[in-house]
């Protein structure tokens, strides 16, 4: 049979983001595949070296487009470790609320994204409509819909607005009441289950070989390896939540875990709203001279649990006003590049888009 070369992306309805999967197919079966990244390369790490520490606050959310808050959190944590800043107690709780809201939003987006490769657009429309109400809540809290620049080194930019608890609670109640509906239309829908069950399996032995983290790893190794649990940042050690795990990592179980995490995030936000103390939300970094603010020498790797796995910043300071080097560990680097090369061959054309969606391949953080 003749070997055909097909491109999934960069301009393709099944591809999330601007990257291209080159597939060599025989019939419907993929024989060879690789990802060609770099279409979103904007010299990010170089750009951060050219801005001051404080200026970089406006640059970092733009690394990963769909989930900007984890960037801010990782950057802020790194700078706080280097400069030895203690964050006020209330700021930790506000950060957790924002991070978990962002996690719900990205899980909803990924769940809606499942509608595109499996063809169920109704599910996509509903999920995106709910995600939009999270963006509206973010607009009330931070003033922006997508790029918030809200979590800054030393706390958060300002306090929560008055009455936001009611908005958040209303949204969470609404989402929770329709959780069953979401499951029914998506992963328990009899026409979708054959598509996602037993497809694109990630064997548990190869997780470490690839370096996959996050839901991809937890669905394969059946252990609660979540950075929020094993090395808690913010105040994740003071809230109660479970890390959903599975022992067999196919597309369905990964999406299932996403939905279960969504429930856990809802419970975390409720606890945060209940336990949040009063007080300051930000310690001033410098007195009026933020552009000349310096950070002591040092190396730090700060990482947070994003929806796709361990997302980290490696930061080096030489004691100046600018970072000396900032490296970004994109959470989807392993599954995006090595995973596609090794585990897409043998599957069908129909499944390639499912890998991109359920493993959460986010091309901006691969290219930077």
């Amino acid at each position: 049979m003749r070997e055909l070369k097909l491109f999934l992306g960069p301009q393709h309805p099944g591809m999330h983001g601007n990257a291209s999967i080159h597939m060599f197919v025989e019939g419907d079966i993929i024989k060879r595949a690789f990802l060609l990244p770099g279409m979103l390369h904007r010299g990010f790490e170089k750009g951060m070296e050219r801005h001051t520490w404080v200026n970089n606050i406006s640059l970092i959310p733009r690394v990963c487009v769909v989930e900007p808050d984890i960037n801010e959190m990782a950057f802020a944590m790194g700078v706080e470790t280097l400069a030895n800043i203690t964050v006020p107690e209330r700021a930790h709780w506000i950060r957790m609320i924002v991070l978990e809201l962002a996690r719900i939003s990205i899980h909803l987006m990924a769940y809606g994204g499942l509608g595109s490769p499996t063809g169920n657009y109704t599910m996509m429309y509903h999920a995106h409509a709910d995600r939009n109400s999270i963006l509206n809540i973010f607009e009330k809290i931070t003033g922006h819909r997508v790029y918030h620049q809200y979590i800054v080194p030393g706390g958060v930019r300002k306090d929560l607005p008055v009455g936001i608890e009611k908005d958040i609670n209303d949204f969470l109640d609404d989402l929770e009441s329709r959780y069953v509906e979401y499951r029914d239309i998506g992963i328990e829908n009899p026409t979708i289950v054959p598509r996602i069950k037993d497809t694109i399996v990630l064997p548990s032995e190869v997780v470490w070989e690839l370096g996959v983290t996050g839901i991809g790893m937890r669905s394969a190794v059946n252990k609660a390896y979540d950075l929020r649990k094993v090395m808690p940042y913010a105040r994740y050690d003071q809230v109660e939540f479970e890390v959903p795990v599975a022992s067999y990592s196919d597309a369905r179980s990964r999406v299932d875990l996403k939905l279960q995490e969504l429930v856990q995030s809802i419970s975390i936000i409720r606890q945060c709203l209940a336990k949040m103390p009063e007080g300051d939300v930000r310690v001033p970094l410098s007195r009026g001279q933020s552009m000349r603010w310096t950070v002591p020498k040092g190396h730090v790797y700060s990482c947070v649990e994003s929806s796709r796995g361990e997302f980290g910043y490696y930061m080096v300071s030489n004691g100046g006003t600018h970072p000396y080097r900032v490296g970004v560990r994109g959470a989807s680097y392993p599954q995006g590049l090595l995973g596609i090369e090794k585990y897409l061959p043998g599957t069908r054309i129909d499944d390639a888009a499912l890998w991109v969606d359920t493993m959460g391949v986010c091309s901006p953080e691969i290219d930077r």
Partner: protein
Amino acid sequence: MIISILMGISVAFFGFVLQTSIAGVNRKIIGRVQKRYGPKWYQEFLDIFKLLSKRSVTHGWIFDFGVIMALGGIIATAMFMPITNDLMAFPGFDNFFIFVYLIAVGMLGMAMSASGSGNPLASIGVMRALTTMLAYEIPFMIIVLTIIKLTGHSSLSEIAMFQQTAVAGLEFSGTWFMIALPVGFAVAFLSLMGMLGKKPFETYIAPAEIASGPMVEYGGKQLGMLFIMHEITVFIEVSLFVHLFLGGAENIWIFLIKYFLVYTSVNLISNVNGRFKIDQVVVFFYKWPLLFAVMQAFVAIYLGWVI
């Protein structure tokens, strides 16, 4: 003769206008299902005329000729379609098998043209479309042959008349086959969803996998013609279904109502479903629908158990 041909063309035109408006209304209904406002009801007309107003690129004469052949073949098929009992262009020529054979001309034209574009995605799409066709045709044919056996006619208007009036000498006349053969109706409805390319049998379009399959290289006027062809094809298939199972129509209003109900229910069911893979489509049709179709045929013809 000329009057008949003119009438046939006006039937095709009527089918186009009818189906395009109903598709527009359906887009609005689906919009409401998806919690949004939805487009204007005449949006489909705007889309088609816009496509016809654009400039287009050609990929060789087979590409262009195939489109014209598809459109011509489908219009020729639609000319024979009876709308009500009396309203038809060629009385006596509305045999079911005419539609089966003529509709293949249009499909082949499209397949030829898509393959002529040279895009691998189009070839995959055509391959999938032919496979899907193979899958849904067999159960559908078994049910239709059962009906032909029961009525003793293969003409659509005769079958419709059979369902409308209870004649004393004929068994099971006077009831719609939707009620008379419930299992067969369900099988045929599934096949209709396959014919119309609705989810879960949308595999050959599949935007997220093969970028809308056969249509991948079309743009401008060719795509406009394909859209017209698609609308008339849908008109033919849904009308066939109305005549075969829902007892045809005494007058045009009944036809409109039945047509609208069938098309809307197909659309509503389709919109909460996902999309099967191509092998799953084949397995799906060859498993239960085929079995039920054979069973229904056996029960109806040999045992005479008809409601």
